[in-house]
């Protein structure tokens, strides 16, 4: 994602008491969705003052039931959705792995990696090194010349994840990144995450499962539109 060295304020306001070493500070974010045609429809408030904070080298879990607003919060942090109110402040570079793979069906794995190498502004050498490392870590080198349309769901998800990590961002947002992974890849994913965390990367993993708690530094539970620690 784009360099966010200047802090980003989603709603145009800034939180004055943000920790100076935090990579991400989300403060009092609210978001409603309207259903049905105006004026007959109704409005559902999904986020009601969600706040969270992540420092460098933290591997944070964001858990919650289906429909609790986890993906909505992710999209607001990334900038795909606007918040109704509240602020999002980031430092450094951002990587985002969406819940559903957002790919071009008729482009190959290597073409996707080339496009994102270019978008992240990586030089050719660094792009190649990073690509080779991710292909090996996620074990899908043999699919590098396959078009996305011919990949299985799990391999698409590997590519989806690899695209978000290509530039080794300061903050990595993962929205249920292991959906469709086999057991070996699932374990590889956590090993990769732990390795990056140890190197100082801040990682926020969204899940509706709580079985991975022991792998995480801290967790937030999204309940009633708010992020509750623990």
């Amino acid at each position: 994602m784009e360099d966010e060295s200047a802090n980003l304020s989603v709603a145009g306001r800034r939180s004055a008491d943000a920790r100076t070493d935090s990579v991400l500070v989300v403060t009092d974010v609210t978001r409603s969705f309207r259903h049905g045609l105006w004026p007959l429809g109704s409005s559902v408030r999904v986020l009601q003052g969600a706040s969270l904070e992540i420092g460098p080298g933290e591997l944070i879990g964001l858990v919650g039931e289906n429909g609790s607003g986890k993906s909505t919060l992710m999209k607001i942090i990334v900038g795909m959705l606007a918040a109704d109110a509240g602020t999002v402040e980031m430092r450094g570079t951002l990587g985002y792995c969406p819940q559903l793979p957002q790919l071009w069906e008729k482009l190959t794995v290597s073409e996707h990696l080339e496009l994102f190498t270019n978008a992240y502004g990586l030089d050719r050498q660094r792009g190649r090194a990073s690509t080779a490392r991710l292909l090996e870590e996620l074990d899908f080198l043999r699919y590098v010349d396959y078009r996305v349309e011919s990949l299985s769901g799990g391999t698409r998800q590997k590519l989806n994840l690899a695209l978000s990590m290509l530039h080794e961002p300061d903050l990595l947002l993962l929205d249920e990144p292991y959906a469709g992974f086999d057991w070996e890849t699932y374990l590889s994913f956590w090993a990769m995450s732990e390795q990056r965390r140890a190197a100082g990367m801040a990682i926020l993993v969204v899940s509706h499962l709580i079985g991975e708690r022991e792998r995480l530094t801290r967790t937030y539970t999204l309940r009633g539109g708010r992020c509750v620690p623990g």
Partner: protein
Amino acid sequence: MKGVALTGWCFLREQLRAPLTLVLLVVLPILFVVTASSALGDFSRALGGDARGEAATALAAGWASAFLAGAFGFFQTMSSHEADQRLALAGLGPAATAIARLSSALAMVATVTAAAFVALRLQQSVPHVAHTFLAIFAYACIYLAIGTAVGSIVRDPLAGSLMVVFIFLLDVFSGPGMSSGTSGLATVLSPSQKAGELLLAAGGRTSSSPGDWIGAGLSVAIAVTIALSVFWFAARRR
């Protein structure tokens, strides 16, 4: 600039890998011009227009390229919106992504224009080759821009395609050669009005005035600018 070129080239490769789409983009304009052009003169007469014979056939080539370019622009933009937005947010930026997407589509639309032009050439002699080709290309560019703009903001395939068809029909029935007058809001707002006048002149074997060329060029420039702006708006960071 290099990044835009690389991205545009990748987008073009993506489109070239859809063989059925390619075949339809080449075959449909030819079929339309060959089969429907003779009926268009009668249709124009019924509506009070003045497109007859070779002028009506020339107009058919413009419409065929316009409709296919509009449909192509809409569906390719709508179907790739999320991936395009992801790339834009990754650092390429919404403006560069928009330029890459539209420029790759323009290459495809040039193919549609060529097919429509060949079909026209099969039907009748074309004395003003460049004039005729550019007029058909102007039609295609304007509708590519309309389809791209609609595809950037409408996510529902049915609703979006209906919008493109509605704009096209309104434009066709109020455009030059098909209506009796030049008044009325639909005529004033007709996006292909100037391109149609160019094409009618080419089909009628007369030259167009500099004013007509400037008008058609402005129509294309305005349509492309609107399409780029709407794409940028839909792909930008919130």
